């Protein structure tokens, strides 16, 4: 059988001592750096890209893949522990993960994230090996209109995720989309809303917004409360491990997350990101067992689902890169860069011209995931110890890491000032009870959405009906409309309110 012989070839490459060491080194480095707030996979890989100059192509890519998984896992760790998502796809993990941590269940949350990711990683590896060619065909069917509709669906999905007013949440998405418009227009090259500040012509950094709103804003909000009401962690840490009930709750969520993630990851344009919040939406819509913790208040399914989706998506997002040479996200763009540094032209021919590299990389994805579990499960105890540090020591530390992280983004103080500005914005949002997570998602998808909208309109000669006459696009839009209708239905509306109030 092809699949088996291909995988055998891959594992033969991945299980050499040298490649195992690089996979381990990459995963370790990635975790260590990813745990630092604000340093996500992109920053980490970018930082370590020069270190691969001396390596052969295969170990170099294996190490980079390890860094990618490690940083992603590290990013979820910070999302759970201090509510600062290290990267965009762990934004939703922070919602329930952080609440679990505050209730003394950080261990369970981290274990659910780790084991869920590992499971998703195993499945993702098999899927890449088996379905890379046919899945690529599906991606071919996506034109700009479909991408635009897909993103509309994704953003609407994000709205259902916010607790509180639906209209306000949609307005926050729009605000995010608008903030994403501060950049240089891709098509005409016109700088927009830059007020002649050169740094603004490249757009606002995602990290500056995330750290300002979630990191600094949260600290200000916490300090503003009288000490006895402060949102700190309970001293009482309930076990490092998930309970039997946790496993029972989390396992179906992991399965659903994995399947969603595997499918959405293939779509170019932030597959892992879409996957994680689609998974969260699905989990929220699923009927839980009676007496389960409400979503947004520390439900383990809200961690396990998105985390497995995100990891499965991260895995399958290699497919367009490996088969088409199209990087679906910034990390993959860096991987493509690394391949070209090594003299390999990414594209369909890699599979045939460098089978060792292709299958070796796929096998090492599994190896990298396994190493992450081995690495991180024992470390959970250490991460939890971090939480017993009193808040008055912890928040200056968070601020130090965030500030240095902001500065090192571009070796420029500008991002630090932006972070300070968004701290004020974040505090205002907090005061006005506007949920900031949808804003961040809108901000990330904004530029992609605009580009696809304009391309779709160009292709249809200004005819807006292109979005509803193309069947795939129409289907996605109908799904988005259905979601709004479902949430607006009076019976669900009251249930939704109830669910959020119950938890208070």
């Amino acid at each position, binding site marked *: 059988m092809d699949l088996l012989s291909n995988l055998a070839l891959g594992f033969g490459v991945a299980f050499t001592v040298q490649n195992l060491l690089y996979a381990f080194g990459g995963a370790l480095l990635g975790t260590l*750096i990813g745990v630092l707030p604000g340093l996500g996979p992109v920053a980490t890989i970018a*930082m370590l890209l020069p270190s691969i100059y001396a390596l052969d192509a295969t170990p170099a890519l294996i190490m980079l893949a390890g860094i990618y998984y490690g940083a992603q896992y590290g990013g979820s760790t910070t999302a759970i522990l201090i509510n600062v998502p290290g990267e965009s796809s762990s934004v939703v993990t922070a919602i329930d993960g952080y609440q679990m941590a505050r209730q003394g269940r950080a261990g369970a949350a981290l274990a659910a994230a780790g084991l869920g990711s590992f499971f998703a990683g195993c499945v993702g590896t098999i899927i890449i090996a088996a379905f890379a060619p046919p899945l690529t065909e599906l991606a071919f069917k996506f034109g700009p209109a479909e991408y635009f509709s897909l993103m509309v669906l994704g953003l609407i999905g994000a709205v259902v995720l916010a607790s509180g*007013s639906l*209209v*306000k949440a*949609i*307005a926050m998405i*729009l*605000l995010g*989309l*608008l903030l994403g*418009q501060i950049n240089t*227009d891709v*098509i*005409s090259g*016109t700088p*927009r*809303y830059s007020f002649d500040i050169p740094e603004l012509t490249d757009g606002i950094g995602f990290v500056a917004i995330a750290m300002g709103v979630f990191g*600094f804003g949260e*600290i*200000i*909000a916490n*300090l*503003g*409360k009288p*000490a006895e009401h402060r949102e700190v962690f309970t001293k009482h840490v309930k076990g490092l491990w998930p309970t039997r009930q946790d496993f029972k709750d989390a396992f179906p969520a992991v399965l659903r997350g994995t399947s969603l993630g595997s499918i959405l990851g293939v779509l170019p344009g932030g597959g892992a990101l879409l996957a994680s919040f689609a998974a969260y939406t699905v989990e929220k819509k699923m009927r839980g067992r009676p007496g389960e913790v409400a979503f947004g208040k520390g439900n383990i399914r809200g961690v396990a689902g998105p985390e497995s989706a995100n990891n499965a998506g991260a895995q399958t997002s290699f497919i367009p890169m490996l088969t088409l040479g199209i990087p679906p996200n910034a990390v993959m763009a860096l991987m493509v860069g690394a391949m070209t540094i090594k003299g390999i032209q990414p594209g369909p021919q890699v599979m045939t011209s460098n089978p060792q590299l292709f299958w070796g990389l796929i096998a090492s994805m599994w190896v990298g995931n396994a190493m992450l579990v081995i690495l991180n499960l024992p470390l959970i105890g250490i991460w939890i110890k971090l939480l017993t540090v009193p808040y*008055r*020591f912890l*928040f*200056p*530390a968070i*601020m*130090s*890491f965030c*500030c*240095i992280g902001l*500065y*090192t983004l571009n070796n420029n*103080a*500008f991002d*630090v*000032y932006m*972070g*300070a500005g968004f*701290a*004020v914005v974040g*505090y*205002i949002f907090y*005061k*006005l009870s*506007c949920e900031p997570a949808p804003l961040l998602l809108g901000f990330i998808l904004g530029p992609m959405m*605009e580009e696809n*909208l*304009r391309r779709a*309109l*160009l292709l249809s*000669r*200004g*005819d*807006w009906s292109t979005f509803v006459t193309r069947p795939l696009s129409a289907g996605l839009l109908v799904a988005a409309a259905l979601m709004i209708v479902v949430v607006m239905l009076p019976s669900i509306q009251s249930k939704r309110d109830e669910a959020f109030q119950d938890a208070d």
Partner: protein
Amino acid sequence: MKIKSQRDFWSGLMFVAIGLGFAWGATTYSFGSSARPGPGYFPFGLGILMAVLGGVVLFKAMTIESEGGDPVGAFAWKPLSFIVGTVVVFGWTLPHLGMVVALPILVIVAALAGDEFHWGEAIANAVLLTLGCWLIFIVGLKLTIPLWPAFIG
């Protein structure tokens, strides 16, 4: 007319203002046509849409009763000004005076924003964090962060 929800009223106002602001800004860029959308096309539409939604939020804030008027509450001026201020100061001091000066200032001023402040603890924390950040970012990751003031290094 009486405001029924303070928080929603102000957020509605904020959305309307920002939406109109962006839409107004978009008019300075070429709008193009639907067949050939220009750089102003998308932001203009978004801005208007957001202003409309802000209007809906405003309308709801004026009509739908909420518990106790949903007041915004007092601003925590002290933490707000200290935290934001110290981050801005850090942005200036790091490139000019290096991490050895910038980080302790950040840590101590940030600690001042809290209500349990002790000089001893804050200084110890500052020393520890500066040492830690030096080990992680400069020694470990080899990032180019100025360590000493520019006039010494």
